[in-house]
């Protein structure tokens, strides 16, 4: 999701919000759809939470509430919130999941279903770091801040996450 600013609507707040929603809802949903490994229900929930926060901010008079930049910031935080909620449970599984084999090259004959399954297999932590780094194109330092980690720890996490994704793609394709 790109951070380009959208023109702000003037006039009645209701009309402005409706117009802004029409312009941005598909982009926000697509972002969450990718970031949640194609989990449609979850993408809908996060989209709803994001726009509700937007409306509340607009009603409070937040001047940037109806801009894509502000909306993207909210969406990213909603995503981080979601993955933090789920990371604790998955921490117990990570010991099982953590493998020491070297990653194989990416099999480029994968389908979207394989990609979806592979991302869905990742731990919440791995998926989040990949989303922030490669879907949002954030620098590692910013990813580290969002995840509450040091830059070094985030770089290590990225290495592990890429390896896990590669392995997961292999497994999903074989399946």
């Amino acid at each position, binding site marked *: 999701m790109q951070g380009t600013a959208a023109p702000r609507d003037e006039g009645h707040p*209701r009309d402005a919000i409706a117009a802004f929603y029409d312009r941005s809802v598909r982009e926000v*949903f697509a972002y969450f*759809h990718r970031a949640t490994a194609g989990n449609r229900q979850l993408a809908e929930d996060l989209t709803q939470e994001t726009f*509700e926060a937007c409306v509340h901010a607009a009603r409070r008079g937040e001047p940037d509430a109806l801009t894509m930049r502000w909306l993207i910031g909210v969406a990213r935080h909603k995503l981080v919130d979601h993955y933090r909620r789920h990371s604790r449970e998955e921490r117990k599984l990570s010991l099982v999941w953590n493998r020491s084999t070297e990653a194989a090259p990416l099999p480029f004959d994968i389908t979207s279903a394989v990609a979806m399954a592979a*991302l869905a297999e990742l731990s919440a932590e791995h998926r989040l770091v990949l*989303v922030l780094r490669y879907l949002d194109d954030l620098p590692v330092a910013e990813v580290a801040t969002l995840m509450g980690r040091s830059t070094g720890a985030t770089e290590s996490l990225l290495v592990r996450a*890429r390896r896990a*994704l590669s392995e997961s793609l292999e497994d999903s394709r074989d399946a």
Partner: protein
Amino acid sequence: MPDHDVRQVFDMLDGAPTPEFEATLKQRLLDLVDASGPQTITNTGRGPDIEETIAMVKLDAPESSNRRRMLQIFGAVAAAVVIVIVIVAATGNSDESLTPATAPAAATTAPTTADAATTTEPETTTSTTAVASTTVAPTTVPAPQGPRITLPPDLNPGTYELASAVVPLQFTTTQPWSRVLDFQDRVVLGRGPESADGEFLIVFDRFKDATPETILDGLCTDQAVIGAPTPTTLMGVEAFGAEGTTTTACPASSIGGSGFFIGADRTFTIVAAEIDDHVVVVFSSAPAAVSATFIPEIDEQVSSMQKLG
């Protein structure tokens, strides 16, 4: 795996919302915009108590009226806290598990007049003098978990032990506090009338299925400017901490229980950790104007916390 390959994987997951979802959400948002429309907030992940509170405040009420009602509720919460203090004080308790280890003699537990009375069900008693004059709204303070752990009404600087808390611990204060609540699952200290000048909470397991991270995430997200959570330690355990300042009063039931609000324009600090399978949250707030002195004091107080046993 090269970077561009990872991006390619994400690119394969393009998706669009269904027209039904688009239309439904749009209508919902426009209802939120309309001051007279239903504005119950759901799916926040912060528990029904917040949702009910927000719904109660916002339903069919214009913005200015909302603020008044919010203030009324805030006042009622404060009144309810006063009630609990009075009632709790009236229960008396011979459990001396929380004792000032090195506090001056004045801080030790000389029974007050109220302590002489006995009431076995403090949370359901409604006939004290304080109740009669101040109860306004149907806001409730949640029932405590387990028995009280007696704390002196006034805490002078010194070290205090919470031997019967969910996670037994001790902490050292460098400034005076007053006891507001002290139960096994939470200890609340205050400063000034209705804790207006400062408050300090230690709470245990107050939110179902919470983690230290979600505790921070659920705290006044839209009503405060909050710094990014940073790793820290609490009693030697890995923790998350954050600081923020509220812009408007906001409910914070994830840390304080139903009806707990943080007032407007207050600086707060929060540290949360999982200790011995319990989520422990240490929260403090004070008027933003005194944050320069309050935050260092709280940092020192949090650093002094140690597990007992």
